[in-house]
């Protein structure tokens, strides 16, 4: 069984196979012998090698959250089949993270933008929030307008990652 995740700009391939009373788990090829000691109410107690570790886990439709040793990690599920179909040339929607007012739309369809370029400026909670390009792209569609009140999850701009971008 295999799972793929993305976190902190890195990709992870995790494969699991039953072994002995537990699992052999490989993370990008690195093997770990693991046993699930307890999993209740989102608290996962594992025996990793010979050390007991506790994790808090939770998820929503798109992401998995794991708390371990004083730090919280956010993982995105990377669906291998969807990725294969859309890896090159797919339009990427950029969404509003919270209800906000669109203060200004800085780009128009067809604009080439660099990584970090501001595309839309939002205002929420008395703060200015800039929606920026995650990588060098071309603006495929602008889906919002100045003065519009947007909801969380609403698509603001669709960008088309540039061919040779990383």
């Amino acid at each position, binding site marked *: *069984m295999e*799972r793929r*995740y993305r*976190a*902190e*700009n*890195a990709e*992870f391939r*995790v494969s*699991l196979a039953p072994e002995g009373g537990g*699992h052999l*788990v490989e*993370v990008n090829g*690195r093997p*770990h012998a*693991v046993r*699930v000691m307890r*999993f*209740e*109410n*989102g*608290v*996962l107690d*594992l025996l*990793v090698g010979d050390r007991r*570790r506790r*994790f*808090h*886990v*939770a*998820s*929503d439709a798109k992401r*998995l*959250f*794991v*708390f*371990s*040793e*004083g*730090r*919280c*990690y*956010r*993982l995105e*599920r990377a*669906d291998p*089949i969807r990725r294969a179909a859309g890896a090159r040339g797919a339009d990427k929607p950029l969404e509003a*993270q*919270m*209800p*906000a007012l669109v203060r200004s739309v800085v780009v128009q369809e067809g604009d080439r933008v660099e990584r970090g370029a501001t595309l839309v400026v939002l205002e*929420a*909670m008395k*703060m200015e*929030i*800039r929606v920026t390009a995650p990588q060098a792209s071309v603006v495929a569609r602008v889906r919002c307008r100045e003065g519009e009140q947007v909801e*969380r999850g609403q698509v603001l701009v669709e960008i088309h990652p540039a061919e040779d971008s990383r």
Partner: protein
Amino acid sequence: MRPLPFTRLLIANRGEIAVRIIRACRELGIRTVAIHSEADAGAMHAREADEAVAVDGSSPVESYLNIPRIVGAAIGSGCQAVHPGYGFLSENPRFAKAVEEAGLAFIGPSAETMRRLSDKTQARALARANEVPVVPGFDGSLKKKDFAREAGRLGYPVLIKAAAGGGGRGMRLITSPAELEPALESARREAEGAFSDDRVFLEKYLESARHVEFQILGDGRGRALHLFERDCSLQRRHQKLVEESPSPALSAAQRERMGEAAVRLAEAAAYRNAGTVEFLLDTGTGEFHFLEVNARLQVEHPVTELLTGVDLVAAQIRIAAGDSIPFETADLRPRGHVLECRVYAEDPAAGFVPSAGPILRLVHPEGPGVRVDAGYAAGDEVSGHFDAMLAKVIVWAGDREAALRRMDRALAEMVVLGVTTNLDFLRALLAEPDFREGRAGTDFIARRMGGWAGSGAEVPDEVLVAAALAEVCSSSSPSAASGNAGNPGDLHDPWEHSDGFRMGT
């Protein structure tokens, strides 16, 4: 204790401060009525109160500013008193007056005192008249050339501030004469829009300053006392992030002088109920300067509560009931060291952009000397309509070093899943040597932590192991995955029923 004349109290606020007031009322045997906007119908404060009343507003925030509806709700639900919390209407003299005119007790100062002190130029004048040194400044005229001359006399950099302002709004920092005119116009416009009052004044900008404030209580009959200080020097964009007491920068003599000045000012204003006198301490010269009075309870009040053992909200309610204050400053025994950190739903590594969404898991730190004041519980939604503060973590320990260690433990033990928080950022901040040695001033975060990109980019293998195993285990046992957000089987396997991906291969 004398029985109170209040049996029901309405809280004109939300979030953690509303919950705080509810707790104080429970201990005093007072029933509580919460107000909420439609968006907040399921919020923690609405659930915790004995009753909850929906208040209309053109937006979720507007509901908490709707004076006629809120006063109506208090009367309609049989309340004898109203507590305004902090923010929202807590320093709005029209609200205090409306509450008083409705025959209800307002848990705070009188409308008149509020009006006088919220006008910064009047407050400064009152300070000067009572031998309380003020930040060097100019508030004498509206003419641009007078401002230009005075700014030159004070010496750049200079701050333009709104006379009717607060919360850092209507402020502009100017570093040269060329910036003065456009900054004046811009500040005036913002002040007019935010406070319907475009009056501005100048203050010298003190570069190496610490923000030190004194908690005061006044009986409204000319007597006031202080409950020592809080050092709130760690700020980002004029918003406090970490507060502590005692201030590492104050000598006993300075503390006494500043405390006396705060009391002098409060008594000159015949201040009633709780308030805070804010000063800037110039670490270069050791001089202190009056900044402003906050005529309400502050966010960071727990710092004083843990230091002195005084329940400030209970004290507020008793003073509003007409009780005299049963102690003097000399009766208080401040002990040890207290630190408070504000936990926000934001991403410091991405320019502090706010993070919204459902809180899927929330575990508070516990143990000796740890207090958490939270306004959200697991399963609640951080909507983005309101301030993004999730909780305050306050620790007490025997001395400052122990308090720093305890705060690091508490922050490391706190689990928040579902939204991004500033927990890592707070721990990194507290680890900075300048802060640990008590040297951080109000510009520390801007100068030192500006480009903070997170505490380490690599995800350890065991986190991936845990993620994968959790998904595998929960698809066969949904109850295992349901955390305290109460969604059984929320860890679902998205591939089990789609795309022809076969299980067990």
